[in-house]
């Protein structure tokens, strides 16, 4: 699969090139890459928020669009994207309402319990901490029992300690809802701790650089993270990442490339929205 964005004046930005990956049913895959390598763009393609310039995405015989129409896709973004005027309960009910399905109050209560937010049903997003907002966002993404779960750096904006705690919780949540999951992150520890398999991407244009299967037994705990084998793997993957320059682009400053990519995805987003 390849993803290109027009930059104007006949120039193009190739965000992702010849990217090939397979995810097994019920597998947890982490996509690891330097910033600006197009890993979030990959996720946007899987969420049918963008279309690939060439190549196809096949999810159990269906396109991302069809998966979305069947309400079988759950997404949690780095920006929690909760609706500020709705409380926790109603934010989690949103997928039911958009799908014109009766709200399953039992399921909502179960999800609120799953993410440990009992007692906060009536709270607005702004009254919650960053970590709590992300829990609501994950609960919302699981509301309709998705077949595929996409997590775009869901804890990217959090500090190290709450982040580690939420990763433990995410593992528990994932074990209880063994759903095919793609996690996009630039945190090596997080990727190794959570995933069955880690895919390392090269810098722009993003390609598959390395694939590692993570064998640590589940449930993984804080002691797993202290295992020397865990550290070796983290070191190896970190080394692979460090070889990659951050989002490099011919004739443009890295920042300009980032801006152009942001502008291009904003334009695409506008097309999707209208």
């Amino acid at each position, binding site marked *: 699969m390849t993803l290109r964005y027009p930059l104007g004046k006949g120039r193009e930005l190739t965000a992702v090139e010849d990217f090939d990956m397979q995810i097994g049913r019920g597998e947890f895959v982490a996509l690891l890459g330097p910033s600006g390598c197009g890993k979030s763009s990959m996720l946007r393609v899987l969420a049918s928020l963008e279309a690939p310039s060439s190549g196809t995405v096949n999810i159990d015989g269906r396109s991302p669009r069809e998966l*979305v129409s069947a*309400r079988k896709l759950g997404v949690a973004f780095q920006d929690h994207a909760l*609706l500020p*005027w709705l409380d926790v309960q109603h934010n989690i009910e949103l997928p039911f309402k958009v799908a014109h399905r009766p709200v399953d109050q039992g399921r909502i209560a179960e999800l609120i319990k799953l993410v440990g937010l009992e007692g906060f049903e009536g709270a607005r997003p702004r009254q919650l901490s960053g970590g709590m907002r992300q829990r609501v966002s994950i609960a919302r993404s699981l509301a309709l029992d998705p077949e595929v779960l996409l997590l775009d750096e869901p804890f990217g904006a959090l500090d190290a300690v709450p982040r580690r705690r939420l990763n433990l919780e995410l593992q528990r949540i994932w074990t209880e809802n063994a759903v095919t999951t793609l996690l996009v992150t630039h945190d090596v520890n997080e990727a190794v701790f959570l995933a069955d398999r880690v895919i390392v991407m090269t810098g722009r244009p993003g390609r598959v650089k390395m694939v590692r299967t993570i064998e640590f037994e589940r449930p993984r705990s804080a002691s797993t993270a202290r295992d020397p084998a865990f550290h070796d793997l983290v070191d190896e993957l970190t080394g692979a990442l460090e070889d990659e320059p951050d989002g490099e682009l011919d004739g443009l400053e890295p920042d300009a490339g980032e801006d152009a990519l942001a502008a291009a995805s904003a334009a695409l*987003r506008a097309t999707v*929205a209208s």
Partner: protein
Amino acid sequence: MSTSAAALAPVEKAEGSTPWAMRALGAGLCLALWEISGRLGWFGATWPAFSEVLRALVDERDLLARSVRASLPTMIKGFCLGVSTGLFLALLPQVVPVLRGVSTRFATVVNALPLVVLAPVLVTILGRDTVQVVVSGLACFLPMFIATSAGLTATRPSHLDVMSCLGSTRLSALFRVRLPAALPGIADGLRLAAPAAVLGAIFGEWFGAEKGLGAVLVTGMQNFRIGLLWAAALLSTLISIVALLGFTALGRWAQRRFS
């Protein structure tokens, strides 16, 4: 120590109340200046003292009360007409995207027509009574249209992404995300539209209305009843201010609740 604490207390209290005291003082100064300049005739015979305006307000209270009763429904109808047209034109491209250009161009053209020219023409077409409502509506529809359109584009892209991933239709995204996010903008539009509707209604009444504050303004001008003229102007201003304050409060609430 205790004396210094006691001495500090009134200072703190005074600090808290300073803005109100200053405001009252400022308003008082303006009124005093108005009174003095009117009595001494600094700006000629058409600039009455504040007390004269108050006297006219009391003396002519029956006429003025009747006029307010005649004008208020016009203002409210004009406000509703303008606001609903502005809302409709701003929402139309959200439902039918190809009409985006049509909406904007229509709004621009209507706004480019000078009301002074348009009103006499409308009198001949619509008759004197309808024209007041239409002129009032025309005056307030553009702020509503612009504020609503701007509010609708203020939606966070990530919210639209979420809706898209949930398989939402455009209409569902409009009602669940775009409109709630636009409510503070819409409240701003109402705040700007209210005084415009008041102004438009009074202006509409200049074109041969028999009753209403606009008609009183014309009579006052023609018969050199300066006190009455100013009393009517003062009442119009008060109506504008009350409407403005009301919608400002609504806007503050919308801002707190929806963003």
